[in-house]
Structure formats: C-alpha cells, structure tokens
C-alpha cells in the first residue's frame, strides 16, 4: 500500500531513539513558535513591559537598602519572575495536549513515552534562554550594567536552574487541571507569590512576618544570588536564608525538583490506569 519500505529493521538502540524522539518533540514545540509569532510576542511582551513599567514608574520612588540604583536591583528580580511564570506556560501546553488527545496518540505509538515529557521540558528551557536574552538586551538598553565573565554565566545558569525545577510543577499541574481555561487561572495564584518575595522590594522593608515569608520564598534566593553574581546591589538582609542566597538558589530548585519530578512522572504513569 506504500511505495516505501515501512518495515526497515530498527538497528539502533533504545538510547538513540529516546534522544531522537525527544528532539522531534522539541522540534514540534519550536515549530509552534515559528508558526505563531504572535505567541512569542505575548510571552516576551509581558516581561519587557514589566521591565519598562516597574523600572521607570516605580524606579524613581523606590529605594534599595544599602544604596544603589533601583533599576539595577530590579532587573535580576524580573528575570527570576519570568522564569517563575514559565510554569504556567508549561502547564497550559501540557493540558492542551492531554485534552486534545495528542498525548494519547504519542502513547499509542512505538516512541519512548518519556520523550513526551522530556521534550516538553527541553523546549521550555530553550524558550527560557530566548526570553532571558531578550530581557537582558532590554535591560541593557535601559542602563543596567552587570559584571561580565563567569559571574554572569553562573547567574544565567541559576535562572535556568529555577526554570528547570518549575517545569515539573508545570507538567504536574498540566496533567492535573481539567482544561486549558483552568490553567489560565494559575496566573492568579502565581502573581501574589512573585510579589511576596525580594523581586520588587527588599524583604526588610516589609512588615516583619511578611518580610520573613518573602525572604524564604525560593524566588528571593535566586533573585538575590543573581544580583550578587551580576555585581548589582543585592539589598542585603539579616535572615540566614538571605545571608546564604547563593547556596539556597541552588538548593531550592533541587528541593522543588525532588518533590515535583516524581509527582509529574507518577501523574503521567497514571494515564495508563
């Protein structure tokens, strides 16, 4: 029924096909962005707009404990916030695929099932790189002046490390919520979580109890550690978690991954029940 030989023996090993399947899922994700440039515009538009709004509107009225320019303080926080909001994007794409039957189709095929999730995660990390690059260019244009070199690369790595941890929350939620509309509601949950952190305001300027919560927010650790690595004002802070920002920027995502990666995998396996 086909002029082609469709039964060529599969001579390559499992690992080869796992990587190949993964790459093909990534290609699909990237083709989505190529075919829907408007989506990129939206996705990047929000952080760019935030950088401009908070930088110029709040910038003049804000002060940074220990001195320094608010814009320099704000930028690393904005980068961390964009990474954090990324989980909504992951969840939305996963819930879309699972409700439309695309995940079932993948699972009915002889491909590696884990590639469905791994490919999603890898796509989101690549997109995160693009988001960070564009935001940083905007920030540079606004006068943000980070230190270059290894510190810069380490900061970039920490931001991606946070995004990596949040992929698993996104996948887990995407398989949990019933429809894409519900995934949209996640934004309402995420927004306060980013406000109660050191992203916009240093925790020691908040009421005591709120400052404590904000200091222990995982986003605060990433924001503070990257501020330090970029060589921009870090805002200080007396709490233990604030004194050990670099360590905690590594540990928090590790904890999140340790909790949510197994949850996401279990949720995916439950599809066969």
């Amino acid at each position: 029924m086909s002029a082609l030989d469709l039964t060529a023996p599969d001579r390559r090993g499992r690992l080869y096909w796992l990587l190949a399947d993964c790459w093909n899922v990534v290609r699909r994700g990237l083709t989505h962005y190529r075919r829907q440039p408007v989506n990129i515009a939206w996705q990047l538009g929000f952080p760019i707009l935030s950088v401009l709004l908070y930088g110029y509107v709040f910038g003049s009225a804000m002060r940074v404990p220990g001195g320094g320019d608010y814009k320099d303080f704000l930028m690393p926080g904005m980068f961390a916030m964009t990474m954090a909001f990324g989980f909504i994007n992951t969840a939305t794409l996963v819930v879309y695929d699972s409700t439309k039957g695309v995940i079932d189709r993948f699972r009915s095929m002889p491909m590696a099932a884990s590639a469905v999730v791994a490919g999603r995660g890898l796509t989101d990390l690549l997109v995160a790189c693009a988001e960070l690059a564009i935001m940083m260019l905007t920030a540079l244009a606004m006068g943000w002046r980070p230190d270059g070199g290894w510190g810069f690369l380490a900061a970039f790595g920490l931001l991606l490390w946070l995004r990596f941890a949040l992929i698993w929350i996104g996948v887990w939620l995407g398989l949990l919520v019933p429809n894409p509309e519900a995934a949209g509601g996640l934004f309402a949950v995420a927004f306060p979580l980013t406000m109660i952190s050191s992203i916009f305001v240093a925790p020691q300027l908040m009421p005591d109890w709120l400052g404590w919560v904000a200091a222990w927010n995982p986003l605060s650790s990433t924001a503070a550690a990257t501020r330090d690595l970029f060589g921009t004002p870090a805002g200080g802070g007396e709490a233990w978690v604030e004194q050990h920002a670099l360590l905690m920027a590594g540990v928090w995502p590790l904890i999140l991954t340790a909790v949510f990666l197994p949850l996401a995998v279990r949720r995916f396996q439950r599809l066969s029940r």
Partner: protein
Amino acid sequence: MDGYAVWAEALEKRYGEKRALDGFDLAVREGTVHGLLGPNGAGKTTAVRILSTLIRLDGGRARVAGLDVARQPREVRARIGLTGQYAAVDEVLTGRQNLEMFGRLFHLGGKRARLRAAELLEQFDLTDAADRGVGKYSGGMRRRLDLAASMILAPAVLFLDEPTTGLDPRSRGEVWESVRELVARGTTVLLTTQYLEEADKLASRITVIDRGRAIADDTPDGLKDRVGGDRVEVVLAERGDLPRAVKVVARVCEGEPETDEGELRVHAPVTDRVAALTEVARTLQDEGVGVEDIGLRRPSLDDVFLRLTGHRTKTSQEKETAA
C-alpha cells in the same frame, strides 16, 4: 486464534466500584471491519484503550496482531493505528508537518517520513490543504488527517473510536469512504460507534456491548433480523379508526401488526419497504381513514438494545427525561 487480528478473552477493567469491562470477549477476523456497538458508557472506549495499550487491563487476556497487549505493548504499538474520539492532531502545525512529525516519531527517519507524508496526503485527498494550518481544516478534513496519521506505518490493525461523532453528514461520508479504501488495502478495522447505521454501512460483523459485556455478536443482517427489520408505521388522527387501520396494515405487510393505543400508532414489519408504504397509504385513503403521520421506520440502536437487553440506551432515556 489464527486468522484473528484481535482476540480478547474475559477482559476486566474496574474503576473503583464501577466495572467498566466485566468479562468482555471479542474476536475480529483479519481483513474485516468489525463494529463495536453500544451506548455511551457501555465500555466501548475502555475496550479500545486496553487493546491499543493506552490503559492496563485488570483481568483477562488480549492479543492484537498476534501479540499480547500486556506483555508486548511496544511491539503492539508498531502494528496498530488509533483514531480516537477527538482528532488528535496538532492544530498549530500544517497537515504535512503533522504527518512528518508523527512519521519521525514512528522512527521512519527524516527522508522516509517526508515521502510517506506526501503519499498519505495524496491518499486521503489532502494534498491541496497540505501546507495550511490544521486549525483552518473542516471537521472532516481533520478526521481524515487523523486517519492518515494512524496509517503511517500501514498498521495491521486500526482502531477507530467513534470516528464520525460530531461530524456533519458530508464529512461522515468522506470518513466512511476512507475507511473502505483502507480495508480494501488489507487493514483490519475495529470500529466503535453509537450509530447502528454506521456499523451497518461499514462492518461485516458487529459486537453489541452493554455494561461492560458483549451481549450479541452477529452480522448486521442477523442483528436486524432479531429486531425485526424495517417497519411501516402509521399514526392515526382518530381513535375510532384503529381497528380498520390494523386490518389494512395486516393485509399489506408480512408481519403481525403491533398497536400502541395511547399514541394511536400501528406498525408492522415489511420487506418490500416502498411498495408496502405506498400500498398502505393508498388503501387507508381509499377507506377514508384520517392519517396524522405515516412512514418507514428503520430499527435504531435503541430498538436493538430494547430487544437484546430489555432496557433502553442511556442516551434515549436522557432524551425522554429531558422531553
């Protein structure tokens, strides 16, 4: 089991207290279309999901294309195609991009995936729309693309889970045409449907499923014989005419007429449908019997169910409660 593309024995699937499948048997001969007919919630989709390795079974045994679905799921997946209730294609990508992506994920490699995509677009009459986004496709086109994606490896067995649900009559016809072509090329098809008409048009054998069990397994004609085939049905304007109408219907039709006095309805089985209908209509008019409505009634899934199980299908009960 030789000569059977699908062989399932005593399948069990429980969700908590609910038994979705409760000792379900199925045997599908190679090279045929086999209909799996039942109302919503009867277990059709559960059966298809087990046979296509998407969910695990709790009991029983199933072989597809000669392979055990529980022990060799990966090997089964290389030999089946699945088209579910939703057109599970990527709506952002074009038709061609969809087929090429699925081809690569079926491990054809880039070049063969491209060639196979072109072949299938041609076969399913989608070449003109190949480079348009699937979001702009009609329901029928989308379902045909879904079918094409299921056919990438030219699988031995194709599962079609309610392939025409939600389609308009024209799109439905297009999908039926594609299914017939596939079978002519040697694919075995297991088709689930809620429509007796669809099973009748496509399937050479039908299994009726209710409450997780197979309650009948027969040819379409065999099933219809059990229900009694087509009937002429007359609804009268006045109660007094009832005895005369029964006499007319009895004279023209082959079978014993049945009456529904509450609704002033008389109906009887016929074989030469149109001739009988014309004859009944003319005779009633000649005798001056007032007729509210007259027509041919084909046995519906509901009739099959009522006859086989003694209860109506869930969907029709819902309709009645709503009405």
